[in-house]
């Protein structure tokens, strides 16, 4: 791959190539920051514009919008507690509290650097190890995926500290909500109660925006709002000083590894990676008590992991022709439209094109830092408005965002009801992150469990024989579940 680098750079460094990289990344950041647009819609919007372009420019444009939008989602998550994309939902947990403390610029600085590093490492992984990693990912069948998702669900325990029962209940409600609609295997309607609109299930983003953003508007309205107060003090991105990284590099390295690993597995996605990584950071960070109150480690974990997924997800897409998620499925369509057939043979039959795509992806992640700073500086004046006006604007953005996901009026109603229920639950101290985690991981959990049971003729015990990766993952999940109990026992013994 590396010997193709000169030809690859020659293909990228044309006027069209550079313009596409810069404008595509900026557009991706802006679209990602708008709640409800999301990476899939952003890539889909740009797809028709690529038809008149050359092969390399078209593919680079889609990649730039993809990487830019994943990062852009963190901007609205941090500034207004409204994740632009589902994969940024975990960023809200610590990013927004930092904004409320008046450290919005610094929170975005952490998010930007973590995103850039996550993206660059995953791009390097893509360049060096695409064929080998893709081959390993093929070892993941339904049983291994089930074990991986169980491991992911253990993060509900860690994000529920302080109100474990409420967190678990919210998580279970989230998993249940994900099962509403057509059954993925038989197609039979479940819990639709005759409502045609429910056949497609609850839209994830409608629920996420409702429980996080709209409920925040209602919560603030229920308190006395200071008419002259500013919601967020934001002047632009403030990059953290070098010494501030001390003790955080471990979190970064682990999160990038999780993001790359999860990205490679088909059907998991960036939201899953962000939550698994967040939970792992919360377990292992020396500053775990500060999580949920504006701890930079939480932002680093979430943002580096969801950006590391971008490169990882391209591995099965390019090397095997298997899209990892909805976004890479749209990307697969782009490649096919431009005469590229992804698969094992592509690596050997057109190495220059592959090298150009992978190198372009690395460059996109490099320019993400200056472009992120530029876009956020341009957006800063918009945020210097009074709380009442910003709250009203957020409510409007919630509605617009959800409308653009599917154009379905029913989703708007779901978002509004989710907002009201979220408000009532949050008033009683129910954390909303477990609900979203449940909704994100629920479909894969169910599908992999049922596929696993089909493979083993209905025997759950067979999950533990002949599947060493699954056993290792389940044991890790068990270990991680028992850690908080062990910690609580040790604390009790210490205080006694």
């Amino acid at each position: 791959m590396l010997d193709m680098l000169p030809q690859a750079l020659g293909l990228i460094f044309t006027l069209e190539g550079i313009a596409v990289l810069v404008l595509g990344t900026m557009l991706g950041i802006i679209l990602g920051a708008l709640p409800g647009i999301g990476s899939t819609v952003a890539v889909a919007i740009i797809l028709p514009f690529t038809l008149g372009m050359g092969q390399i420019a078209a593919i680079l444009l889609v990649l730039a919008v993809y990487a830019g939008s994943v990062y852009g989602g963190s901007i609205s998550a941090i500034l207004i507690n409204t994740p632009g994309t589902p994969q940024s939902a975990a960023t809200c947990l610590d990013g927004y509290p930092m904004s409320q403390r008046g450290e919005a610029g610094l929170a975005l600085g952490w998010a930007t650097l973590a995103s850039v590093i996550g993206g660059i490492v995953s791009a390097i992984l893509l360049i060096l190890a695409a064929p080998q990693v893709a081959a390993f990912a093929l070892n993941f069948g339904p049983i291994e995926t089930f074990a991986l998702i169980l491991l992911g669900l253990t993060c509900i325990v860690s994000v529920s500290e302080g109100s474990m029962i409420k967190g678990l209940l919210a998580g279970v409600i989230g998993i249940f909500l994900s099962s509403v609609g057509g059954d993925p295997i038989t197609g039979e309607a479940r819990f639709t109660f005759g409502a045609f609109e429910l056949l497609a299930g609850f839209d994830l983003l409608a629920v996420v925006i409702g429980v996080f953003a709209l409920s925040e508007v209602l919560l603030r309205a229920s308190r006395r709002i200071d008419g002259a107060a500013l919601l967020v003090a934001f002047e632009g991105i403030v990059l953290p000083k070098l010494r501030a990284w001390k003790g955080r590099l471990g979190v970064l390295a682990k999160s990038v590894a999780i993001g790359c690993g999860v990205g490679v597995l088909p059907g998991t996605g960036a939201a899953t990676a962000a939550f698994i990584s967040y939970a792992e950071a919360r377990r292992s960070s020396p500053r775990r008590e500060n999580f949920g109150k504006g701890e930079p480690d939480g932002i680093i974990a979430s943002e580096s992991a969801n950006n590391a997924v971008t490169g990882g997800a391209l591995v099965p897409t390019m090397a095997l022709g298997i899209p990892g998620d909805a976004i890479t499925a749209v990307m697969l369509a782009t490649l096919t439209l431009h005469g590229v057939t992804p698969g094992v043979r592509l690596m050997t039959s057109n190495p220059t094109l592959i090298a150009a795509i992978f190198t372009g992806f690395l460059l996109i992640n490099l320019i993400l830092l200056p472009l992120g700073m530029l876009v956020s500086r341009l957006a800063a004046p918009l945020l210097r408005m009074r709380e009442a006006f910003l709250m009203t604007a957020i409510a409007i953005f919630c509605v617009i965002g959800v409308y653009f996901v599917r154009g379905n009026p029913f989703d708007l109603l779901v978002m509004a009801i989710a907002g009201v229920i979220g408000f009532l639950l949050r008033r009683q101290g129910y954390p909303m992150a477990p609900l979203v985690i449940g909704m994100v991981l629920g479909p894969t959990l169910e599908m992999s469990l049922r596929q696993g049971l089909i493979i083993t003729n209905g025997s759950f015990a067979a999950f533990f024989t002949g599947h060493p990766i699954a056993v290792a993952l389940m044991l890790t999940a068990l270990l991680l579940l028992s850690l908080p109990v062990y910690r609580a026992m040790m604390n009790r013994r210490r205080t006694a």
Partner: protein
Amino acid sequence: MLALINERALVALVLFLTGIALLWTAIAGGTPDLQPAFDPRFFPRIVLTLWVAIAAMELAAAVWRREPSLEPAAWRIGVLVIAVLLYAVLFTRLGFFITSVAFCIVSLLVLGQRHILTIAAFAIGAPTMLLILFNRVLKMPLPASPFFWWL
């Protein structure tokens, strides 16, 4: 009995009863001769059983601890909830512009703004800018009004 009811217990009770009702639906609608993997209600039954069990624990904890009840949400939250629900329902029927202008006025008044000119400027200015951004720049049309085609 009434002394045991507080807002936390009421929320837990509603969640518990909802869980029971859904679990009953899942059990009643199941097909007993199907293998679990092919039974559409197999997975929801597991999840709902957990829901009921955890909600029962939360209900017991809420009744047992009897935490001091929260200050009831002010009247303005009721108005805002109704405004949000109406905005969501009417958004696609009456179009983006009309509903957004109306929502901005109600929301800003509820949130304590009293300067009429500022409210009017924001209520008309913000939706207009968003209309231009989405309809003209991004070419992603927002719902149009059935009364005025240009809005």
